[in-house]
């Protein structure tokens, strides 16, 4: 009954990149990933099609939101040591300053990885790590391998 199960090995940077690359919209945006230990940093190099306000110019709020959501789901995969994407239940995004036409970075922290729900906070920044342009707080459905029928039909 109480069989000891060895935990799966930590994900590699290549596995996380593969996971991100499996999302066509993430590829379209040009999202890059680097994993060191269990700390994942996503990078979004600038390109003109990411702009939402051409006057300032400023990045589109949806781009910044989607980018942070990718950071959240990828960090959950790292925490779970599983190459699979959780499903988003809800996200709340605070926009702190307009995204400038330059590279953007994001890091996520899995506040709580439950059996079914993960609670995640993400920060996105540009020039300085301690001057975030946006934060995200979200809940994600992490269907366990033996619990897959909890996932909504996709």
């Amino acid at each position, binding site marked *: 009954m109480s069989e000891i199960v060895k935990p799966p090995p930590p994900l590699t940077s290549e596995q996380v990149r593969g996971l991100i690359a*499996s999302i066509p*919209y993430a590829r379209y945006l040009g999202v890059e990933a680097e994993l060191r230990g269990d700390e994942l940093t996503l990078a979004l190099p600038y390109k003109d099609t990411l702009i939402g306000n051409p006057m300032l110019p400023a990045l589109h709020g949806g781009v910044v939101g989607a*980018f942070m959501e990718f950071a959240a789901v990828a960090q959950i995969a790292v925490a779970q040591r599983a190459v699979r994407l959780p499903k988003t239940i809800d996200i709340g995004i605070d926009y702190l300053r307009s995204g400038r036409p330059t590279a953007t970075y994001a890091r996520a922290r899995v506040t709580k990885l439950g059996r079914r729900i993960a609670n995640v906070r993400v920060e996105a920044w540009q020039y300085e790590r301690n001057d975030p342009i946006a934060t995200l707080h979200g809940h994600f459905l992490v269907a366990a391998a033996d619990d897959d029928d909890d996932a909504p039909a996709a």
Partner: protein
Amino acid sequence: MTDPTAPPPAGGALPDGMRPVVEMMMQGTPHARALGFQLMDVQRGRAWARAPFRDDLVGDATTGVIAGGVVTALLDQVCGVAAMSAQSEPSSTATIDLRIDYMRAAAPGRSVLAQAHCYKLTRSVAFVRAVAYDADPEDPIANATAAFMIAANVGRKPGSNARPPRKPK
């Protein structure tokens, strides 16, 4: 049943000169144009938009469902247009906060529609609700609530974002 992709009947006309402004807000927004967003209709404080299905905008290649991030971008965009259309003269908007509940995945291969309503406008802030759906607004993919800063560009020179932000003293 009516065609869900057809624009709803017009009403609540926009103030003079606002229609080109809100249309430009869609066509003149590089990311909205890049994703192929279409403004279907706009009334005072209300907007309807569409994200046509495209293979490169999918979120999960195994299911062929449009990405949640595209739905996020569409909801942000349509909420911003509703916030603009609620105003009596052209201004600028910036998202303060955007909260989205994802109720279900979009149907595979389907475009996503969204409608937004700016239900309260103050001098500084527009409060907006929106829903994204693929066939019936009563069967939503996602619900959004958002707050927008009004006259967001005031005091900002065009191109001012080309430089890094000034360090606080």
